[in-house]
């Protein structure tokens, strides 16, 4: 059972065989499940297998659908496409955390159903698809360990974990987590527990791990919290790369069989060569054979070609020549090689960092098998497999998920932009690790693409300060994002100048960054100076030879671009970085779009609020006007003007009727009646004029005669009230386009108002000056002034502060002036008099 995974023949696995295998596992699995609380993931896994067994035994169960309260069985398709049970674990954990007993059963039903769906799916399919089954199954056998966070004891572990660690079940029972992961001492566990309170899951791609044989390695770990019998526990899922181990063990078995065969043949050497050529040389794995002195005696093409050498050039080289010091000494490869030479035991390591000059860092799995060299002396077969791509994919998927979660957690645009930029620029496990990231957004109104925000240092010195401050601190993306609230205002942040200057017209379709936006392609510029797609201005601003521009697109909508570079470290931007930028930009575009829509909606809401306020004040205004315009008010205002002549007419008419013989008196009285009737008609005409737009009879004429005629007309009134007149009229005013009758009416109203404002005497000043606005004619009095609350209303119809005013004078004045394209302004303060200024436009020459 210890080697359960390997006992299943990988290549020929089909459902019946799996069943047969499960048959042998049933009792131990169920026993273990009984042993463990059902709410643990290990228990869940065991139970799922048991359920699967039960279902498959009774074909009637095959027809049964999933429990109705659970999600539908799209899992069959998803599973066949390679999604593993592992993908269910987060859901399982949250279910388990919420309601341990009942829910876990529901989850297990789901799990069983998923496996069942796969089985159903596979029933009528070919062997090829059976291989997918195998993959799914293998993923379900990820090594899993449950650790008490308090005591560090191993509470549970699955077979794969035993295989990975090399311990027997008996040995494992007394293990503590520090035996497997020396770093995970109590303080570290407490720290981990706190982190897991905030984040549901932590992923470490290279976590130090120690095997039973004392070998140290690094494994990829997904860690999350669960409750285990009331105790807080850590669930660690270890990525053990079972496929590779299996493949290599088969390879080793084949090699061993061949060796046995060879030892009985004469032409052994020839056959061995043939074996290498035909089988090993064709492997994508890099293989070398080394002798007891740790010198290379053979290498396959994959190995020496990758090094850029020939086979002969490699022969005789020592391990010191081909492996980096870090790998050989610090990571313990030399010890491992010597150990295998001495004991003959196979060693399998995963997750090494391999650095070689001229190549990007790689992550490799290394296996050491004992073998005999071509000369029959003991040697070692070292198999190196590049798993960087797989690690990168896991890493990228996790990273992108984390960044997109961060992006989706805010609708606030600046905060979102900051999250995106941090995702691009943060290093380590927090982001893509570019030196600098800039977001440029489309501004349709201004017709430009302009930088909105940038994250990164201004220069190398600042970079050093920031990075050295960060070094040694493990920071997640969330940690970085929390800094947002402590950021200085945008204008004081690093790169503020760049943000200010980076503006590109939308019509510049020939150059970056518009080119990226228009083509929808991420563009990787290697040499900005000599790249025709980079305008000199853009290159000048970025000051960076190599950079990436990724478009932010949502369907047809072009939102902007993300620009990233390594302008400090000049680290080469790899294809995978470009790929990541593209994926991130896709996610970012969606998030920005969402935030912009939200902002628009909010602005719309704000506008509506303002509109509502406007409406309210307009309504109040309307009510006020309506009040002023009530019949009573209008009558009050107009009554005086009508009743006086009317009573005069009535009085004299009666007198004529009464004494028709008084010819002489009646003659005079009839004339008075005629005069008063004319006056009434004029009054009525004035009122009607006001309500009816009058066509303007413009005539170019000097202003002063009009002013003088009105002053003359009103001289008596001023004299009456003891008002003096002061004139300040510029002599050389240009002629203006005026309707003399209407303009005279304006002046009359203004001068009468001024007179009426000074019942106890004062001074009227009439001045006219040419200014750059036009001819400014102003009438100033020294009266009481207009109260501030009345100032804004004085040009409204039926607004009056005078007991006898009609409230039409100024309204009419403004109407007439509007028709002249002239303005009227008023200035007044209580006790300081009032000044009305008419600004008459110069005639168009």
């Amino acid at each position, binding site marked *: 059972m210890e080697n359960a995974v390997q006992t299943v023949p990988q290549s020929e696995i089909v459902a019946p065989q799996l069943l047969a295998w499960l048959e042998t596992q049933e009792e131990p699995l169920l026993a273990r499940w009984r042993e463990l609380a059902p709410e643990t993931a290990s228990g869940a896994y065991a139970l799922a297998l048991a359920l699967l067994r039960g279902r498959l035994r009774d074909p009637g169960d095959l027809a049964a659908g999933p429990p109705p309260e659970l999600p539908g069985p799209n899992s069959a398709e998803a599973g066949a496409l390679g999604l593993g049970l592992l993908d269910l674990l987060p859901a399982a954990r949250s279910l388990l955390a919420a309601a341990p007993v009942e829910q876990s059963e529901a989850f297990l039903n789901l799990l069983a159903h998923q496996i069942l769906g796969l089985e159903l799916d596979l029933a009528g399919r070919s062997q090829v698809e059976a291989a997918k089954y195998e993959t799914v199954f293998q993923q379900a056998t990820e090594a899993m360990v449950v650790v008490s966070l308090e005591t560090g004891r191993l509470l549970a572990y699955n077979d794969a974990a035993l295989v990975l660690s090399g311990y027997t079940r008996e040995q494992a029972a007394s293990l503590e987590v520090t035996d497997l992961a020396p770093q995970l001492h109590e303080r570290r566990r407490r720290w981990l527990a706190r982190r897991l309170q905030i984040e549901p899951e932590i992923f470490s791609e290279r976590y130090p791990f120690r095997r039973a044989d004392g070998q140290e390695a690094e494994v990829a770990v997904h860690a999350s919290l669960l409750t285990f019998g009331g105790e807080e526990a850590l669930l660690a899922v270890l990525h053990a790369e079972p496929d590779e181990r299996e493949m290599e063990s088969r390879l080793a078995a084949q090699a061993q069989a061949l060796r046995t065969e060879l030892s009985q043949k004469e032409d052994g050497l020839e056959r061995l060569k043939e074996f290498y050529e035909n089988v090993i040389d064709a492997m994508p794995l890099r293989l070398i054979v080394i002798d007891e002195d740790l010198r290379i005696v053979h290498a396959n093409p994959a190995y020496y070609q990758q090094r850029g050498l020939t086979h002969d050039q490699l022969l005789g080289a020592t391990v010191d020549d081909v492996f980096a010091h870090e790998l050989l000494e610090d990571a313990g490869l030399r010890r491992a090689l010597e150990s295998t030479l001495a004991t003959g035991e196979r060693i399998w390591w995963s997750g090494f960092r391999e650095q070689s000059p001229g190549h990007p860092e790689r992550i490799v799995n290394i296996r050491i098998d004992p073998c005999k060299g071509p000369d029959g002396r003991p040697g070692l077969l070292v198999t190196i497999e590049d798993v960087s791509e797989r690690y990168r994919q896991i890493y990228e998927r996790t990273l992108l998920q984390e960044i997109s979660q961060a992006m989706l957690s805010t609708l606030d645009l600046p905060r979102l932009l900051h999250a995106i930029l941090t995702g691009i620029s943060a290093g380590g496990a927090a982001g893509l690790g570019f030196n600098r990231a800039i977001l440029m957004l489309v501004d349709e109104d201004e017709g430009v693409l302009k930088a909105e925000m940038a994250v990164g240092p201004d220069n190398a010195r600042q970079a050093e300060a920031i990075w050295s401050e960060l070094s040694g601190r493990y920071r997640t993306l969330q940690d970085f994002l929390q800094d947002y609230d402590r950021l200085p205002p945008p204008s004081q942040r690093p790169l503020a100048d760049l943000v200010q200057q980076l503006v590109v017209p939308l019509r510049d379709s020939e150059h970056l960054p518009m080119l990226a936006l228009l083509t929808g392609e991420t563009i990787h510029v290697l040499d900005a100076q000599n790249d025709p797609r980079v305008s000199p201005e853009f290159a000048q601003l970025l000051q960076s030879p190599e950079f990436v521009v990724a478009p932010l697109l949502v369907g047809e909508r072009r939102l902007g671009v993300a620009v990233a570079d390594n302008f400090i470290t000049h680290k080469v931007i790899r294809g995978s970085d470009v790929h990541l930028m593209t994926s991130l930009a896709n996610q970012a575009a969606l998030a920005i779009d969402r935030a912009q829509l939200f902002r628009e909606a909010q602005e719309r809401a704000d506008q509506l609020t303002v509109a509502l306020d406007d409406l309210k004040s307009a309504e109040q205004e309307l009510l006020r006007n309506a009040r002023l315009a009530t019949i009573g008010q209008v009558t009050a205002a107009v009554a005086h003007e009508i009743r006086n*002549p009317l009573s005069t007419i009535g009085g004299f008419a009666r007198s004529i009727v009464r004494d028709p013989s008084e010819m002489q008196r009646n003659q005079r009285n009839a004339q008075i009646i005629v005069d008063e009737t004319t006056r009434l008609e004029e009054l009525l005409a004035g009122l009607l004029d006001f309500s009816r737009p009058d066509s303007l009879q413009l005539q170019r004429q000097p202003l002063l005669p009009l002013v003088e005629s009105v002053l003359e007309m009103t001289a008596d009134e001023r004299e009456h009230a003891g008002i003096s007149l002061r004139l300040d009229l510029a002599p050389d005013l240009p002629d203006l386009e005026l309707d003399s009758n209407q303009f005279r009416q304006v002046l009359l109203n203004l001068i009468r108002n001024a007179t009426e404002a000074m019942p106890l005497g004062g001074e009227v000043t009439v001045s006219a000056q040419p200014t750059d606005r036009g001819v400014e004619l102003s009438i100033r009095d020294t009266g009481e002034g207009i109260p501030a609350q009345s100032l804004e209303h004085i040009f409204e119809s039926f607004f009056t502060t005078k007991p006898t005013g009609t409230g039409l004078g100024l309204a009419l004045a403004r109407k007439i002036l509007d028709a002249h394209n002239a303005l009227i302004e008023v200035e007044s303060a209580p006790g300081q008099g009032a000044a009305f200024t008419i600004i008459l436009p110069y005639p168009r020459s």
Partner: protein
Amino acid sequence: MPKILVVDDDENQRLLYRQELELAGYEVDTAASGPQAIERVGQGGIDVVLLDIAMPGMDGVEVLGRILDIDRQLPVILNTAYSSYKEDFMTWAAEAYVTKSGDLSELRARICEALAKRGQSCPGSSDPAKE
């Protein structure tokens, strides 16, 4: 013969009142503005003042106050186109309030009442203006 001071800024109104009141048997004096009226009252000999309210410069309500300052016993009849002035408490000091009309019979009645209070009689029991 009782003497009435007609105060009005409208010339034709002054003519009308002069004609009609003289025909009714009063002696009529006129003033075209508040200050003129106050001056005339100060000279004495007036029995009733007929006072317009809406006048440029000093309005009737103010003139009323000034007249009463000079002679608290002098009856002042407010004669105006505005009906709303009845609500101004200053006008309570007036003897009567008459809204301007082509029919002067109400005005004449108020003048008679005012004279009666002063112990004077209206000229001519046979009112020529009576219709």
